[in-house]
């Protein structure tokens, strides 16, 4: 770490000086009032209650008389206020009310000080957290690659937390405690110089020894903090690497590592306790040393007559006030050191070399000046391991060509791509954009002019539209944020940015019309071959009918159109429609009874048995015995089919109605069925089985005409007697009505694709698309698809989809220079070729640098750079004719 950071006190003082001083002065100003509350009771008891000064019935005392006493040599006293004369009862009430008022006032001051301290602490914490995250945003890429996100999160979130609570007490508290201790000490000194000296020596001893003993405790605290942070890091790894841990069967290895770490943390913490309580008891012991000396030595002095009893008692009483503040002062010092260590520990981690200077992240103020031609001169770059990435590269790039960068893997072409995204830094040489240092360009200029799509793009857990438009949210916009929140942000050293505002750069998009923006999105999605995926997402998504009543009407129209199309002879039997009056052979028994869609887990077909309403209806319709009979039949078949398979055989998951672990249970049930008869739990277990049964798929011939009628009757009763609290949870399938709980596709189909018809799914998909295209509802579906949530890190998308989306995100910016760096590595050759062709056509006349994973597409570019061992081995311009060939 090259730079050292500011000390904790420096940081606190610099950013909260004013508040600290205000609090301190309020606290000091409160002291006289505090003192008054302590003396008033004495006045009340001595005066009006015991009658001191009211010896005669007509005697009065002056209320609020204020006299300042001076030492004799300054001339006795000075009356500030004469006060109001009051008789005994009034005086009692006046004093009591004054007491009440003072208590209230003191409470108010305390409240004021505490809130001010709290606010100060929270502001400082907010500032520190912001500073840390700001630093993360400015980390050099190489440091980011090495950082563990959960450790950083634990530092920003937990480790700096105590600083907030501490900073409010950083100045006021020690001043206060020291003042109290000093007062007590001075008082003792005045009473008896020698005894005072003894207590001063003991206090001094405490102040020297205890912190020394605490030093190892602080060291342990430091270790505890590091271990806890590492644990957080490991937990993060276990979550991120969960799939690989399972694949490699190393869960026990991970357990072992965690056990070791927890053991280490336990040892540290236990030693910490031991030492802490040892120091605590020593501290207590030392605090009791002084009274011991008072009793022994003081007592001896009294016996020998060198000290009178009154003085000794006064000293002992005064001493009562000394250990408290001293102890708290020592505790406070411990807390200070603890926070100091935490602060140092955290700050050390946020000081890597090569951080981007803050100015470079400043919002753009310049007009949208274009980027000048880029020129590399003698550029050499190495990676973290010292391996040469680029070796003495000279290159001039006028920003009007399409350039292919080729060569074998690891030849430096990838590094060249990263260089344009400023993801690597160079060791020697210069990179210039016109006259400017390319690496010193401001973030806003560089990212506006250059779009980069690498092999691994990160996506945020928001919907696809927001991910696609992510690159167009660079410059702060004003929103409706209140003046108060803005001011508060500035007071805590945060920039006054408004995340609620619409940051989208409409100027770069060239339009504000949402329709045109959607068109633009569809264009780039088509370009990268992602449009049909998004279309599928759309079909699988749900529309909110309240938001888009028009859209749902169109879907119902599509349903009718599809139904007509499916009536044609070539498409008959492809789909079995949901008809309230007929049993659907392609749906399960549970689906047939439920006959509706729900987004609530309790109303899902597989959870039906635990629904009391369902149990009631089944009993009413006399279906129970039939379910048990069907269950017996299924159990019998399953036992016959799967008894010889090992428990982990894939067939169980794919085909069996009974999981392998349950097979013995059902074996027992079936045995009882033949001998002693079924028990009640047996019947319950059996009646669950048929609910998943789909006649057309499983073909066990269970749905006889009689059963069918009963199931239909159950369906009717289930809907008719549905309790009011369940009604909002389910939308029944109804002809001519949009079902809000079902996906768009299910709404269009309103039925099930038939099992057993060759390629039924593919054919139905084609038909749906035809129908939707004819009705011109494509945009609607795409829009619904764009609302698809990408998941954490885009994990709900496949690798291929993520790569395509990364390229699309770069394309939508329509940048001056597009850099594509192995962004299509996971796609097959045909897709790759198509995408390259479409993108190049779209980018005609604009600068594009494409780092190709395979060289065979190079002939489509104006210029080809060939890299070998980090060197630029060939640089060929291709004429258009060549390129066309």
């Amino acid at each position, binding site marked *: 770490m090259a730079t050292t950071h500011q000390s904790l006190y420096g940081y606190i003082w610099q950013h909260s000086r004013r508040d600290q001083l205000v609090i301190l002065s309020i606290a000091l100003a409160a002291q006289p009032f505090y003192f008054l509350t302590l003396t008033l009771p004495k006045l009340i008891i001595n005066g009006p209650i015991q009658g001191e000064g009211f010896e005669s019935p007509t005697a009065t005392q002056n209320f609020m008389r204020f006299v300042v006493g001076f030492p004799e040599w300054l001339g006795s006293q000075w009356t500030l206020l004469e006060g109001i004369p009051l008789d005994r009862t009034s005086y009692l009430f006046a004093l009591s009310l004054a007491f009440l008022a003072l208590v209230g006032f003191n409470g108010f001051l305390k409240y004021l000080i505490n809130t001010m301290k709290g606010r100060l602490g929270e502001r400082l914490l907010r500032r520190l957290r912001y500073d840390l995250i700001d630093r993360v945003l400015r980390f050099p890429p190489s440091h980011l690659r090495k950082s563990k996100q959960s450790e950083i999160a634990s530092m920003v979130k937990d480790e700096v937390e105590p600083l907030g609570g501490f900073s409010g007490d950083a100045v006021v508290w020690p001043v206060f405690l020291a003042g109290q201790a000093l007062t007590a000490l001075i008082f003792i000194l005045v009473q008896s110089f020698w005894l005072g000296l003894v207590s001063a020596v003991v206090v001094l001893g405490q102040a020297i020894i205890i912190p020394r003993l605490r030093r190892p405790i602080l060291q342990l605290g430091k270790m505890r903090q590091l271990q806890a942070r590492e644990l957080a890091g490991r937990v993060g790894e276990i979550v991120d690497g969960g799939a690989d841990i399972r694949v490699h069967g190393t869960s026990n290895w991970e357990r072992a590592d965690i056990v070791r770490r927890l053991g280490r943390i336990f040892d540290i913490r236990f030693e910490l306790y031991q030492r802490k309580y040892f120091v605590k008891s020593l501290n207590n012991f030392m605090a009791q040393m002084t009274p011991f000396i008072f009793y022994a030595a003081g007592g001896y002095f009294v016996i020998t007559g060198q000290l009178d009893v009154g003085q000794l008692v006064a000293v002992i009483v005064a001493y009562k006030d000394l250990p408290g503040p001293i102890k708290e002062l020592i505790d406070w010092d411990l807390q200070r050191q603890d926070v100091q260590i935490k602060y140092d520990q955290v700050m050390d981690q946020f000081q890597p070399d090569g951080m981007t200077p803050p100015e470079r992240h400043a919002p753009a103020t310049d007009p949208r000046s274009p980027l000048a031609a880029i020129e590399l001169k003698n550029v050499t770059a190495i990676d973290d391991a010292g391996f040469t990435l680029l070796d003495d590269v000279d290159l001039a790039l006028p920003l009007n060509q399409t350039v292919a960068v080729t060569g074998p893997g690891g030849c430096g072409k990838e590094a060249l791509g990263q260089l344009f995204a400023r993801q690597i830094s160079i060791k020697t040489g210069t990179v210039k954009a016109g006259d400017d240092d390319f690496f010193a360009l401001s973030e806003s200029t560089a990212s506006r002019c250059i779009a980069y799509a690498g092999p691994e793009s990160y996506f945020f857990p928001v919907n696809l539209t927001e991910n696609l438009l992510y690159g167009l949210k660079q410059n702060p916009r004003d929103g409706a944020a209140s003046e108060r929140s803005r001011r508060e942000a500035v007071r805590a050293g945060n920039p006054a940015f408004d995340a609620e505002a619409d940051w989208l750069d409409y100027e770069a998009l060239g339009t504000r019309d949402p329709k045109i923006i959607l068109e633009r999105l569809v264009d780039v999605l088509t370009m990268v071959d992602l449009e049909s995926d998004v279309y599928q997402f759309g079909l699988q998504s749900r529309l909110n009918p309240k938001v888009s009543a028009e859209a749902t009407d169109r879907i119902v129209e599509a349903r009718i159109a599809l139904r007509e199309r499916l009536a044609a002879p070539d498409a008959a*039997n492809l789909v079995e429609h949901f008809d309230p009056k007929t049993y659907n052979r392609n749906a399960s028994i549970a689906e047939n009874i439920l006959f509706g869609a729900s987004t609530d887990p309790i109303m899902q077909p597989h959870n039906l048995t635990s629904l009391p309403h369902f149990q009631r209806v089944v009993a009413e319709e006399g279906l129970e015995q039939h379910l048990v009979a069907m269950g017996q039949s299924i159990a019998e*078949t399953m036992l016959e089919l799967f008894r010889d398979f090992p428990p982990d*055989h894939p067939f169980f998951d794919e085909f069996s109605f009974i999981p392998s672990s349950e097979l013995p249970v059902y074996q027992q049930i079936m045995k009882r069925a033949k001998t002693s008869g079924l028990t009640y739990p047996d019947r319950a277990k059996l009646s669950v089985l048929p609910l998943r049964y789909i006649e057309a798929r*499983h*073909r*066990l011939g269970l749905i006889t005409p009689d059963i069918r009628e009963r199931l239909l009757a159950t369906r009717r009763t289930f809907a008719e007697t549905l309790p009011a609290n369940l009604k909002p949870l389910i939308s029944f399938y109804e002809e001519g009505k949009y079902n809000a709980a079902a996906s768009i596709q299910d709404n269009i189909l309103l039925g099930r694709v038939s099992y057993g*018809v060759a390629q039924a799914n593919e054919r139905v998909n084609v038909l749906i698309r035809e129908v939707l295209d004819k009705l011109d509802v494509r945009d609607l579906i795409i829009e619904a698809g764009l609302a698809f949530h990408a998941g954490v890190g885009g994990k709900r998308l496949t690798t291929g989809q993520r790569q395509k989306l990364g390229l699309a995100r770069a394309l939508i910016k329509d940048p001056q220079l597009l850099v594509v760096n192995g962004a299509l590595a996971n796609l097959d050759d045909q897709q790759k070729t198509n995408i390259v062709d479409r993108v190049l056509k779209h980018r005609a006349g604009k600068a594009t640098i494409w780092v190709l994973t395979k060289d065979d597409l190079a002939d489509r570019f104006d210029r080809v750079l060939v890299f070998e061992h980090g060197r630029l081995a060939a640089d060929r311009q291709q004429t258009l004719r060549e390129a066309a060939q």
Partner: protein
Amino acid sequence: MSILTEVELLRRIPLFSNIDTSRLKLLAFTSERLTFENGAILFREGDRGDSAYLILTGKVDISVGSPNGDVLVASVGANNIVGEMSLLCEIPRSATVTAAEPLDTLRIKKDQFFGLLRDLPQMTLEIMRELALRLNNVNRELSAAHAKLRAAGLE
């Protein structure tokens, strides 16, 4: 037609003739019942095969490509199996199979079939026996053909 009928039909296929009823039931249960319209193509010559089709009702045409277009080699009706070689090894389909009538089939997938063999050695032995018999037949026919050729003085 329920699974039991399918089992009866499976039993008539030589490859499966010696296998237990319960195993055939499992084979039927893990297979997919598929219908094809008249003229639909089950699979094409050269495709990578992943399943065999047991014809339950209807008829298929088997044809192979030639320089003069597809040539009809055979027509096969109910209770026959087509594409069974792909259950055992991954070779491209040797012919194109088209539904010559509306067709009802049982599609046996290679993965499921292998799943059965892996854990049921008895069944594997039965299949091996059947294959050995076939091989023996082929060998015999081959040597007979050789003998004919030699007799005709062509070798």
